[in-house]
């Protein structure tokens, strides 16, 4: 059964599909770029929502997989391999492997320990990125040639790239939707809800948590591959802990364990950031320079007054 809120989500995706035509009509290609960025972060947020929202595992290191996905593309490109199949395959595979290693250790823990362990692993990767001079070290490196898909899609064409990102976003949303409502997903949510009870009826939490952690990491790795194609520049900042925090904020702002939440959260956070930074209507430069303050106030209000985030404000039943 499709809920009201999921119909709203479908409507939002259809609207996003109309953006390229509208941007062309109004001659505002900038918005195509902005929304592509929003959607890439939405994919990362969808993947984080899977473990944080449905799995109850508060990962404070999810940017690690953005970085691994980014470096997988960047490193292959640096060595002259531009095949998107290989680059993105490596991005997904390497992210899954690293998630398996990090998850094998961290999903045994919970609460504050889980947060600290995921953060620690991501910081290790961040400093690894800084230390490797071959791939730009601290400064990062340009990735001027975009991933190539045997002529199927051309990422240099803004509209084609846009629709590819939209397609992957829709696929991720659908995948997570199926996953969390499957037998597997019911166990996952049961573990979040009441671990002792879940063990008592016969489920060992560990394999379910670990599998979710790996799926989530792989999905975020793909977002990383998209992001580096979007920015055409790769730096360790992909993996900075503030990036992990931003992803968490998107999920919480949008509404944890909701299907539309990650997309809404990513959209509102990034669009507000853009609006507040560039808004010439704001009375004084001084106000504009402190846009983060206003963003902060808004976020606090949402967290305080919208318990299920922005998605909780949509019409329809709570999930």
């Amino acid at each position, binding site marked *: 059964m499709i809920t009201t809120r999921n119909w709203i989500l479908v409507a939002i995706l259809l609207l996003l599909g109309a953006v390229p035509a509208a941007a062309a009509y109004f001659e505002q290609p900038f918005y195509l770029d902005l929304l592509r960025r929003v959607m890439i972060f939405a994919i990362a947020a969808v993947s984080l929502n899977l473990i944080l929202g449905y799995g109850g595992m508060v990962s404070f290191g999810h940017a690690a997989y953005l970085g691994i996905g980014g470096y997988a593309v960047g490193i292959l490109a640096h060595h002259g391999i531009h095949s998107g199949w290989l680059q993105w395959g490596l991005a997904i595979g390497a992210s899954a492997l690293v998630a398996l290693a990090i998850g094998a250790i961290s999903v045994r823990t919970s609460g504050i320990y889980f947060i600290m362990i995921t953060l620690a692993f991501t910081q290790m990767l961040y400093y690894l990125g800084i230390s490797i001079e071959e791939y730009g070290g601290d400064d990062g490196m340009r990735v001027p040639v975009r991933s190539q898909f045997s002529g199927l899609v051309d990422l240099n064409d803004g509209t084609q790239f846009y629709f590819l990102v939209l397609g992957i976003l829709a696929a991720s949303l659908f995948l997570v939707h199926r996953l969390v409502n499957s*037998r597997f997903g019911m166990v996952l949510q*049961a573990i979040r*809800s*009441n671990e002792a*009870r879940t063990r*008592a*009826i*016969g489920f*060992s939490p560990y394999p*379910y948590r670990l599998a979710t952690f790996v799926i989530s990491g792989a999905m975020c790795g793909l977002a990383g591959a998209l992001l580096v194609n979007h920015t055409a520049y790769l730096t360790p900042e992909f993996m900075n802990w503030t990036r992990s925090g931003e992803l968490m904020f998107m999920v919480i702002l949008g509404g944890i364990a909701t299907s539309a939440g990650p997309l809404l959260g990513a959209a509102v956070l990034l669009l507000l950031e853009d609006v507040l930074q560039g808004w010439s209507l704001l009375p004084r430069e001084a106000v504009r320079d402190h846009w983060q303050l206003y963003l902060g106030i808004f976020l606090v209000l949402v967290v305080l007054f919208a318990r299920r985030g922005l998605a909780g404000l949509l019409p329809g039943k709570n999930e």
Partner: protein
Amino acid sequence: MNKLLLETRELRKTFGALVATDGVDFDVREGETHAVIGPNGAGKTTFIKQISGELRPDSGEIRFAGDDITALPAPQRSHKGLARSFQITSIYREFSALENVALAVQAHAGHSFRFWRAAREDPALTGPAIRILEEIRLDRRKDVLAANLSHGEQRQLEIAMALATRPQLLLLDEPVAGMGTDESQRMIELLATLKGEKTIVLIEHDMDAVFTLADRISVLVYGRIIATGTPVEIRANQEVRAAYLGEDF
């Protein structure tokens, strides 16, 4: 005499200086309802947790259906046929009553690494779950969120979840705790329908429930079993009377 389903030998568990379980020998015959009573702090919950696998004993042995299960984790014990209800209501509050029971059915319906089909619409899970809710007379409330059920209904749901794992042995930790008279009467009636069908270990404070349901009673005081016998024998036992300081039962 029926054969033994569960036995503990020399079971011992300490928390620092506190000896919570002090060399307990305990056995449960197939088909009987065996109550464990004792004053507060006697170590009843610690004892049941060792049987269910949430706590590991320091020493001693637990055998279930002929196998040594002392080192087996809780989920695997569930698969061997041990089910427990919790003293403090332990359900999935954000799931509906039906989803709660369906999940317990699912735990014993093959592996759950199935990622695609919607579990809520799977008749292989909801079918048995509805039957158990009918048995427990909760079927009319199946779509209500567990959090919104009354306390008594939540306790019933606990039992339903335990039953859904199709256990050989039910460990019930104070099933009528915190219930009003009417509610507890209904629960006792419900448990009476299970009696004989299932082997039951009943931990309970409510003497009404214990003397109505139990075939045998063991009395646990300071981590030791001081007496085991039929309700009549236990009622007459001087040591038990002393432990309860003249409390009426």
